């Protein structure tokens, strides 16, 4: 019998790790960024051994049954206890090889590349038959390296993304996230990597530009812009072109009918106003 189990790649405590790192997830995150288990057993592994593995790690979503390099199927935690919990279930399955249980479980396995976007992966998971929706997903890394990912992790990750998306669409320069100017400046500096001798006053210097849609003046400073973007790379773009650095900032404000519109603004390398473009509606994730 061959049994291989290692914890998630990044940490021995997947849930703890996952919730610590969840803030780093972006709309571009992929399933490879989520904690998954390298856990495979041979078809000869006995039922009680699988039970012991599942008991030892309460977050283990199941096991991949593999014969050599071929995937025979998945026995998820739920399916295992569902079968074992039936009358005479432990007698039937604990002393026999896992292939016995595997034969009784309909297989609708989903194998995804680790580069699959979380959003696309969630769609594929939800496209499965209803009874299989919560089954774990096999994530393939390079070189037929298969790992098991809990569908719950995927759903939590997407839920976080949707929340971020919501935040992305509701902050403006006059009603942004709640953090200090100092933290905003640090975030900006980390994001754009400007030199230390930079005059920090430019970050809090007030600017006023006119929105060509609602024709109102919009007042803001660079720190206000930082506070209006939970994902700063969406709101502050650094451009190094033709030997000159410049910054593009998107100034989000409440425009006509309470809609959020953004005004693209160009600043020179010293963060001084250079020009602006026509305002546009924030309709989708940009």
């Amino acid at each position, binding site marked *: 019998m061959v049994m291989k189990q290692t914890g998630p790649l990044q940490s021995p405590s997947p849930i703890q790790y996952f919730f610590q790192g969840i803030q780093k997830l972006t709309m571009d995150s992929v399933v490879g960024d989520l904690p998954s288990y390298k856990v495979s057993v041979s078809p000869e592994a006995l039922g009680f051994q699988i039970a012991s593995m599942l008991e030892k790690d309460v977050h283990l979503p199941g096991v991949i049954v593999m014969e050599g390099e071929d995937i025979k199927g998945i026995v998820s935690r739920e399916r295992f206890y569902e079968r074992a919990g039936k009358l005479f279930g432990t007698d039937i399955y604990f002393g026999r090889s896992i292939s016995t249980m595997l034969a009784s479980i309909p297989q609708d396995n989903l194998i995804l590349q680790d580069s699959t976007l979380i959003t696309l992966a969630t769609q594929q998971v939800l496209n499965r038959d209803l009874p299989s929706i919560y089954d774990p997903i096999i994530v393939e890394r390079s070189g037929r390296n298969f790992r098991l990912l809990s569908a719950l992790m995927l759903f939590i990750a997407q839920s976080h993304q949707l929340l971020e998306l919501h935040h992305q669409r509701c902050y403006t320069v006059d009603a942004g996230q709640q953090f200090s100017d100092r933290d905003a400046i640090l975030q900006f500096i980390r994001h754009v990597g400007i030199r230390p001798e930079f005059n920090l006053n430019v970050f809090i210097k007030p600017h006023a530009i006119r929105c060509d849609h609602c024709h109102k003046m919009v007042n803001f400073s660079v720190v206000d812009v930082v506070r209006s973007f939970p994902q700063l790379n969406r709101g502050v773009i650094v*451009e190094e*072109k*033709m*030997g*000159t650095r*410049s910054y593009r900032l998107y100034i989000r404000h409440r425009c006509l009918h309470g809609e959020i519109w953004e005004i693209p603004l*160009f600043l*020179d390398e010293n963060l001084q106003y*250079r*020009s602006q473009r026509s305002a546009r509606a924030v309709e989708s994730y940009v």
Partner: protein
Amino acid sequence: MSEAPNNRVTGFVMPVGNGAVGKTSLALTLERSTLPEGWQSVIAGLQKSQNLEFRYVTDVIEVMGTPYRVMHQYLVPPGQKSVEITNRERSFEDVLRIYQSIIRRVDVVLVSYKITDLDTYNDIEYWLEKINPIIHPKTIFILVGTHLDMDEQREVTDPIIKNGTAYASGLLKNLQPEWKGHVTSMEVSNTSGENIDRLRRLISGAILVACGVQVHG
């Protein structure tokens, strides 16, 4: 009537740059600038196509006491990048692919941008890379800022141009180590005609240099 100079040089000039920066207008304005007063309207109006457009300008300049008749042959490609094309229009790359075998050489490249639109200036990098396969080691590059009559809406400032000129020169040397040409800059207005005569003379001089005529000063 003065005698036509015996020294005749023909140079191929290609304006490149984003769409609607004024490449075709520039060639047209340069062509009109050589005509006597009252004859400008003889030149047909603005013609835009998705093809390589041709225009001709004849200029006479004197270099170290020697007069030269310099023929500018303008080859004006479209300003649409291949990534911007969504229908059956031809992009710059398409046109270059079609005509590359018959374009003998490009002596002067007019890298055009609008002084009122920083994006068109920042895209110069793109055009330098795309034009690189058809230049020769002596090709002269002139960064031509158009819309000088809209100076109050200027986005491209002098320091940006100064940095950009040096940067473009370095980029071209990286792209083609044997390139020994020059990069210079000028701003013009196709509407008011400001600096058009200066640009024409600059192009004539550049053609002479690119064609190997000894020009000093």
